[in-house]
Protein backbone atom coordinates (compact mmCIF):
# COMPACT_ATOMS: atom_id res chain seq x y z
CA UNK A 1 0.00 0.00 0.00
CA UNK A 2 2.80 2.32 1.00
CA UNK A 3 4.47 2.09 -2.36
CA UNK A 4 1.17 2.81 -4.06
CA UNK A 5 0.78 5.98 -2.04
CA UNK A 6 4.32 7.09 -2.77
CA UNK A 7 3.79 6.23 -6.41
CA UNK A 8 0.65 8.30 -6.67
CA UNK A 9 2.17 11.35 -4.99
CA UNK A 10 5.24 11.06 -7.19
CA UNK A 11 2.89 10.97 -10.12
CA UNK A 12 1.08 14.05 -8.83
CA UNK A 13 4.41 15.84 -8.75
CA UNK A 14 5.20 14.55 -12.23
CA UNK A 15 1.85 15.76 -13.51
CA UNK A 16 2.43 19.11 -11.78
CA UNK A 17 5.88 19.42 -13.29
CA UNK A 18 4.53 18.35 -16.64
CA UNK A 19 1.91 21.07 -16.51
CA UNK A 20 4.57 23.52 -15.42
CA UNK A 21 6.94 22.60 -18.25
CA UNK A 22 4.12 22.68 -20.71
CA UNK A 23 3.09 26.09 -19.47
CA UNK A 24 6.57 27.50 -19.88
CA UNK A 25 7.06 26.06 -23.35
CA UNK A 26 3.59 26.71 -24.71
CA UNK A 27 2.87 29.86 -22.79
CA UNK A 28 1.42 32.62 -24.87
CA UNK A 29 1.28 36.19 -23.77
CA UNK A 30 -2.32 37.17 -23.52
CA UNK A 31 -3.63 40.69 -24.14
CA UNK A 32 -3.61 41.32 -20.39
CA UNK A 33 0.13 40.80 -20.18
CA UNK A 34 0.14 37.62 -18.18
CA UNK A 35 1.00 34.14 -19.37
CA UNK A 36 -1.98 31.96 -20.10
CA UNK A 37 -2.34 28.27 -20.62
CA UNK A 38 -4.07 27.88 -23.94
CA UNK A 39 -6.66 25.16 -23.86
CA UNK A 40 -5.78 23.97 -20.37
CA UNK A 41 -8.65 22.60 -18.40
CA UNK A 42 -8.01 24.18 -15.04
CA UNK A 43 -10.97 24.47 -12.75
CA UNK A 44 -14.41 23.01 -13.26
CA UNK A 45 -17.25 21.80 -11.12
CA UNK A 46 -16.64 21.19 -7.44
CA UNK A 47 -18.72 20.47 -4.39
CA UNK A 48 -17.39 21.70 -1.06
CA UNK A 49 -18.59 22.84 2.36
CA UNK A 50 -18.99 26.55 3.14
CA UNK A 51 -18.07 28.49 6.28
CA UNK A 52 -21.60 27.93 7.53
CA UNK A 53 -21.48 24.19 6.97
CA UNK A 54 -23.62 24.11 3.83
CA UNK A 55 -22.72 22.13 0.76
CA UNK A 56 -21.95 24.52 -2.08
CA UNK A 57 -20.84 24.17 -5.69
CA UNK A 58 -18.61 26.27 -7.93
CA UNK A 59 -21.77 27.92 -9.30
CA UNK A 60 -22.66 29.17 -5.81
CA UNK A 61 -19.17 30.40 -5.08
CA UNK A 62 -17.81 31.83 -8.33
CA UNK A 63 -20.46 34.43 -9.13
CA UNK A 64 -18.02 37.13 -10.26
CA UNK A 65 -14.33 37.30 -11.19
CA UNK A 66 -12.73 35.33 -8.37
CA UNK A 67 -9.23 34.66 -7.07
CA UNK A 68 -9.03 31.01 -5.93
CA UNK A 69 -6.24 29.79 -3.63
CA UNK A 70 -5.63 26.39 -2.05
CA UNK A 71 -3.96 26.35 1.37
CA UNK A 72 -4.47 25.46 5.01
CA UNK A 73 -4.86 27.50 8.15
CA UNK A 74 -2.19 25.63 10.19
CA UNK A 75 0.32 27.50 8.11
CA UNK A 76 1.74 30.59 9.76
CA UNK A 77 3.87 31.74 6.89
CA UNK A 78 3.18 31.17 3.21
CA UNK A 79 -0.63 30.90 3.18
CA UNK A 80 -1.24 34.11 5.14
CA UNK A 81 1.14 36.03 2.86
CA UNK A 82 -0.54 34.78 -0.30
CA UNK A 83 -4.02 35.22 1.12
CA UNK A 84 -3.20 38.75 2.24
CA UNK A 85 -1.89 39.53 -1.23
CA UNK A 86 -5.17 38.39 -2.77
CA UNK A 87 -7.20 40.37 -0.22
CA UNK A 88 -5.19 43.51 -0.96
CA UNK A 89 -5.71 42.97 -4.71
CA UNK A 90 -9.47 42.77 -4.08
CA UNK A 91 -9.33 46.01 -2.09
CA UNK A 92 -7.38 47.79 -4.82
CA UNK A 93 -9.97 46.65 -7.37
CA UNK A 94 -12.87 47.67 -5.12
CA UNK A 95 -11.44 51.18 -5.00
CA UNK A 96 -11.51 51.15 -8.82
CA UNK A 97 -15.08 49.92 -8.86
CA UNK A 98 -14.23 46.35 -9.91
CA UNK A 99 -15.99 43.81 -7.71
CA UNK A 100 -14.14 40.51 -7.39
CA UNK A 101 -14.38 37.58 -5.02
CA UNK A 102 -11.64 35.80 -3.07
CA UNK A 103 -11.81 32.12 -2.16
CA UNK A 104 -9.57 30.06 0.13
CA UNK A 105 -10.00 26.30 -0.32
CA UNK A 106 -8.54 24.18 2.47
CA UNK A 107 -6.33 21.22 1.61
CA UNK A 108 -6.45 20.20 5.28
CA UNK A 109 -10.11 19.24 5.79
CA UNK A 110 -9.30 17.25 8.91
CA UNK A 111 -8.33 20.31 10.94
CA UNK A 112 -9.98 23.09 8.93
CA UNK A 113 -13.58 23.00 10.07
CA UNK A 114 -16.05 25.54 8.65
CA UNK A 115 -15.68 27.60 11.84
CA UNK A 116 -11.86 27.64 11.67
CA UNK A 117 -12.03 28.72 8.02
CA UNK A 118 -14.61 31.41 8.77
CA UNK A 119 -12.31 32.92 11.39
CA UNK A 120 -9.24 32.59 9.18
CA UNK A 121 -10.78 34.26 6.13
CA UNK A 122 -12.47 37.02 8.16
CA UNK A 123 -9.03 37.92 9.43
CA UNK A 124 -7.99 38.84 5.89
CA UNK A 125 -11.08 40.14 4.14
CA UNK A 126 -14.69 40.49 5.21
CA UNK A 127 -15.91 39.01 1.92
CA UNK A 128 -13.41 36.18 1.59
CA UNK A 129 -15.04 32.75 1.26
CA UNK A 130 -13.46 29.78 3.00
CA UNK A 131 -14.25 26.28 1.74
CA UNK A 132 -13.52 22.87 3.18
CA UNK A 133 -15.19 19.48 2.76
CA UNK A 134 -14.72 15.77 3.06
CA UNK A 135 -11.26 14.48 2.09
CA UNK A 136 -12.85 13.22 -1.15
CA UNK A 137 -14.48 16.58 -1.95
CA UNK A 138 -11.23 18.46 -1.33
CA UNK A 139 -9.26 15.94 -3.38
CA UNK A 140 -11.65 16.33 -6.30
CA UNK A 141 -11.51 20.14 -6.19
CA UNK A 142 -7.72 20.11 -5.98
CA UNK A 143 -7.50 17.74 -8.94
CA UNK A 144 -9.84 19.93 -10.97
CA UNK A 145 -7.50 22.87 -10.42
CA UNK A 146 -4.36 20.76 -10.95
CA UNK A 147 -2.97 21.65 -7.55
CA UNK A 148 -0.73 19.46 -5.43
CA UNK A 149 -0.98 18.86 -1.71
CA UNK A 150 0.28 16.23 0.65
CA UNK A 151 0.12 16.03 4.42
CA UNK A 152 3.52 15.27 5.89
CA UNK A 153 3.21 12.08 7.91
CA UNK A 154 4.49 11.56 11.41
CA UNK A 155 2.63 13.98 13.66
CA UNK A 156 -1.08 13.43 14.31
CA UNK A 157 -1.77 16.91 15.70
CA UNK A 158 0.88 19.32 14.42
CA UNK A 159 1.46 17.92 10.94
CA UNK A 160 2.34 20.17 8.02
CA UNK A 161 0.97 20.10 4.49
CA UNK A 162 3.02 20.65 1.34
CA UNK A 163 0.91 22.44 -1.24
CA UNK A 164 0.83 24.45 -4.46
CA UNK A 165 0.79 28.21 -4.06
CA UNK A 166 -0.69 29.49 -7.32
CA UNK A 167 -3.76 31.69 -7.25
CA UNK A 168 -6.26 31.15 -10.08
CA UNK A 169 -8.38 33.86 -11.65
CA UNK A 170 -11.76 32.30 -12.45
CA UNK A 171 -14.87 33.69 -14.15
CA UNK A 172 -18.44 32.42 -13.71
CA UNK A 173 -19.14 31.56 -17.36
CA UNK A 174 -15.75 31.16 -18.99
CA UNK A 175 -13.88 29.55 -16.10
CA UNK A 176 -10.10 29.79 -15.91
CA UNK A 177 -8.53 33.04 -17.13
CA UNK A 178 -4.99 33.00 -15.77
CA UNK A 179 -2.97 32.22 -12.68
CA UNK A 180 -0.64 34.18 -10.45
CA UNK A 181 2.53 32.94 -8.81
CA UNK A 182 3.10 33.94 -5.24
CA UNK A 183 5.78 36.49 -6.10
CA UNK A 184 3.35 38.56 -8.18
CA UNK A 185 2.62 41.75 -6.22
CA UNK A 186 -0.95 42.71 -5.30
CA UNK A 187 -0.88 45.71 -7.65
CA UNK A 188 -0.06 43.49 -10.62
CA UNK A 189 -2.69 40.91 -9.66
CA UNK A 190 -5.21 43.74 -9.50
CA UNK A 191 -4.14 45.22 -12.82
CA UNK A 192 -4.27 41.94 -14.73
CA UNK A 193 -7.53 40.93 -13.07
CA UNK A 194 -9.09 44.27 -14.03
CA UNK A 195 -7.97 43.75 -17.61
CA UNK A 196 -9.56 40.31 -17.79
CA UNK A 197 -12.69 41.59 -16.08
CA UNK A 198 -12.96 44.29 -18.73
CA UNK A 199 -12.68 41.73 -21.51
CA UNK A 200 -14.69 38.85 -20.14
CA UNK A 201 -17.60 40.51 -18.37
Amino acid at each position, binding site marked *: MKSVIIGSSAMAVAVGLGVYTWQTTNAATDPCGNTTVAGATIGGPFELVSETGETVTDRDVITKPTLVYFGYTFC*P*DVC*PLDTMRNAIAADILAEQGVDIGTVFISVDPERDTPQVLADFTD*NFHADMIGLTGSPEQVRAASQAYKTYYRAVEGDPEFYLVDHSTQTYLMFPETGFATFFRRDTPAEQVAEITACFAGQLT
Partner: protein
Amino acid sequence: MKTTSLAALALLAFATTAAAESAISVADARAFETAPTAMAGGGFLTITNTGTSADTLIAVLADFPRVELHTTEFEGDIARMVHVDTIPVPAGETVTLEPGGLHVMFMGLQGNPLIAGETIAATLVFEEAGEVPVTFDIVKRDMAGHGHSHNH
Protein backbone atom coordinates in the same frame (compact mmCIF):
# COMPACT_ATOMS: atom_id res chain seq x y z
CA MET B 1 48.95 23.70 18.36
CA LYS B 2 45.74 24.43 16.54
CA THR B 3 43.75 21.93 18.55
CA THR B 4 45.21 23.23 21.76
CA SER B 5 44.26 26.81 21.06
CA LEU B 6 40.78 25.75 19.93
CA ALA B 7 40.34 23.73 23.07
CA ALA B 8 41.54 26.67 25.12
CA LEU B 9 39.08 28.92 23.33
CA ALA B 10 36.25 26.52 23.99
CA LEU B 11 37.25 26.33 27.61
CA LEU B 12 37.36 30.08 27.81
CA ALA B 13 33.91 30.34 26.27
CA PHE B 14 32.62 27.77 28.70
CA ALA B 15 34.20 29.51 31.66
CA THR B 16 32.87 32.94 30.74
CA THR B 17 29.30 32.20 29.77
CA ALA B 18 28.19 35.62 30.95
CA ALA B 19 30.60 37.33 28.59
CA ALA B 20 29.59 35.07 25.69
CA GLU B 21 25.93 36.05 26.05
CA SER B 22 26.64 39.56 24.93
CA ALA B 23 27.84 38.23 21.58
CA ILE B 24 24.25 37.48 20.54
CA SER B 25 21.76 40.26 20.07
CA VAL B 26 18.23 39.98 18.77
CA ALA B 27 16.05 42.63 17.16
CA ASP B 28 12.71 43.14 15.46
CA ALA B 29 11.07 40.14 17.16
CA ARG B 30 7.46 40.02 16.02
CA ALA B 31 4.60 37.66 15.36
CA PHE B 32 1.50 38.28 13.31
CA GLU B 33 -1.93 38.30 14.85
CA THR B 34 -4.02 35.19 14.19
CA ALA B 35 -7.68 34.33 13.81
CA PRO B 36 -9.52 33.40 17.05
CA THR B 37 -9.49 29.69 16.24
CA ALA B 38 -6.01 29.59 14.68
CA MET B 39 -3.89 26.60 15.60
CA ALA B 40 -0.47 28.05 14.82
CA GLY B 41 1.34 31.35 14.42
CA GLY B 42 4.72 32.40 13.07
CA GLY B 43 7.42 34.38 14.85
CA PHE B 44 10.15 36.39 13.11
CA LEU B 45 13.30 38.19 14.25
CA THR B 46 16.88 38.99 13.40
CA ILE B 47 19.76 37.44 15.32
CA THR B 48 23.20 39.04 15.22
CA ASN B 49 26.37 37.40 16.43
CA THR B 50 28.77 40.22 17.28
CA GLY B 51 31.22 37.78 18.80
CA THR B 52 34.25 36.16 17.28
CA SER B 53 33.05 32.56 17.44
CA ALA B 54 30.17 30.86 15.66
CA ASP B 55 27.01 30.06 17.57
CA THR B 56 23.88 28.04 16.90
CA LEU B 57 20.27 28.58 17.86
CA ILE B 58 19.16 25.20 19.18
CA ALA B 59 15.74 25.88 20.66
CA VAL B 60 13.04 28.43 21.34
CA LEU B 61 11.09 28.12 24.57
CA ALA B 62 7.66 29.69 25.00
CA ASP B 63 4.43 28.87 26.75
CA PHE B 64 2.77 26.89 23.93
CA PRO B 65 2.18 23.14 23.54
CA ARG B 66 4.93 23.10 20.96
CA VAL B 67 7.45 25.55 19.54
CA GLU B 68 9.61 24.62 16.55
CA LEU B 69 12.01 26.19 14.11
CA HIS B 70 10.82 25.92 10.52
CA THR B 71 11.79 27.06 7.11
CA THR B 72 9.81 27.23 3.89
CA GLU B 73 11.26 25.59 0.82
CA PHE B 74 9.89 25.96 -2.66
CA GLU B 75 9.88 23.40 -5.41
CA GLY B 76 8.46 25.29 -8.33
CA ASP B 77 5.16 26.65 -7.03
CA ILE B 78 4.86 24.05 -4.28
CA ALA B 79 5.66 25.24 -0.77
CA ARG B 80 7.02 22.83 1.81
CA MET B 81 7.41 23.74 5.41
CA VAL B 82 10.38 21.97 6.83
CA HIS B 83 11.31 21.50 10.47
CA VAL B 84 14.90 22.53 11.15
CA ASP B 85 16.72 21.38 14.28
CA THR B 86 19.13 24.29 14.56
CA ILE B 87 19.94 27.64 12.95
CA PRO B 88 23.67 28.46 12.71
CA VAL B 89 24.65 32.06 13.45
CA PRO B 90 28.25 32.53 12.22
CA ALA B 91 30.54 35.01 13.95
CA GLY B 92 29.98 38.58 12.81
CA GLU B 93 26.84 37.73 10.86
CA THR B 94 23.13 38.42 11.09
CA VAL B 95 20.54 35.75 10.44
CA THR B 96 17.06 36.94 9.55
CA LEU B 97 13.94 34.93 10.26
CA GLU B 98 11.41 36.48 7.91
CA PRO B 99 8.15 35.66 6.13
CA GLY B 100 8.70 33.17 3.33
CA GLY B 101 11.78 31.67 4.97
CA LEU B 102 12.99 30.72 8.43
CA HIS B 103 10.47 31.23 11.22
CA VAL B 104 9.58 30.21 14.73
CA MET B 105 6.34 28.25 14.75
CA PHE B 106 4.17 28.56 17.85
CA MET B 107 1.84 25.57 17.75
CA GLY B 108 -1.23 24.52 19.65
CA LEU B 109 -2.76 27.99 20.05
CA GLN B 110 -6.26 26.57 20.20
CA GLY B 111 -8.39 29.05 22.09
CA ASN B 112 -5.39 31.21 22.83
CA PRO B 113 -4.88 33.26 19.63
CA LEU B 114 -2.16 35.83 19.03
CA ILE B 115 -3.74 39.25 19.54
CA ALA B 116 -2.21 42.42 18.08
CA GLY B 117 -0.78 44.65 20.80
CA GLU B 118 0.05 41.76 23.09
CA THR B 119 3.45 40.11 23.38
CA ILE B 120 4.93 36.63 23.59
CA ALA B 121 7.68 36.08 26.14
CA ALA B 122 10.16 33.53 24.84
CA THR B 123 13.68 32.31 25.41
CA LEU B 124 16.15 31.57 22.65
CA VAL B 125 18.63 28.86 23.54
CA PHE B 126 22.05 29.09 21.91
CA GLU B 127 24.75 26.46 22.01
CA GLU B 128 27.38 28.96 23.20
CA ALA B 129 25.57 32.05 24.44
CA GLY B 130 23.05 30.03 26.40
CA GLU B 131 19.60 31.44 27.09
CA VAL B 132 18.67 34.79 25.59
CA PRO B 133 15.28 36.20 26.57
CA VAL B 134 13.21 37.78 23.79
CA THR B 135 9.82 39.42 23.56
CA PHE B 136 7.83 39.00 20.35
CA ASP B 137 5.48 41.92 19.63
CA ILE B 138 2.23 40.72 18.10
CA VAL B 139 1.40 42.94 15.15
CA LYS B 140 -1.34 43.21 12.57
CA ARG B 141 -0.67 41.92 9.10
CA ASP B 142 -0.21 44.96 6.95
CA MET B 143 1.80 44.22 3.87
CA ALA B 144 3.40 47.00 1.86
CA GLY B 145 1.62 49.69 3.90
CA HIS B 146 -1.56 49.41 1.95
CA GLY B 147 -3.76 50.60 4.75
CA HIS B 148 -5.78 47.43 4.36
CA SER B 149 -8.66 47.82 6.75
CA HIS B 150 -10.54 45.15 8.57
CA ASN B 151 -14.28 45.35 8.55
CA HIS B 152 -15.08 43.74 11.85
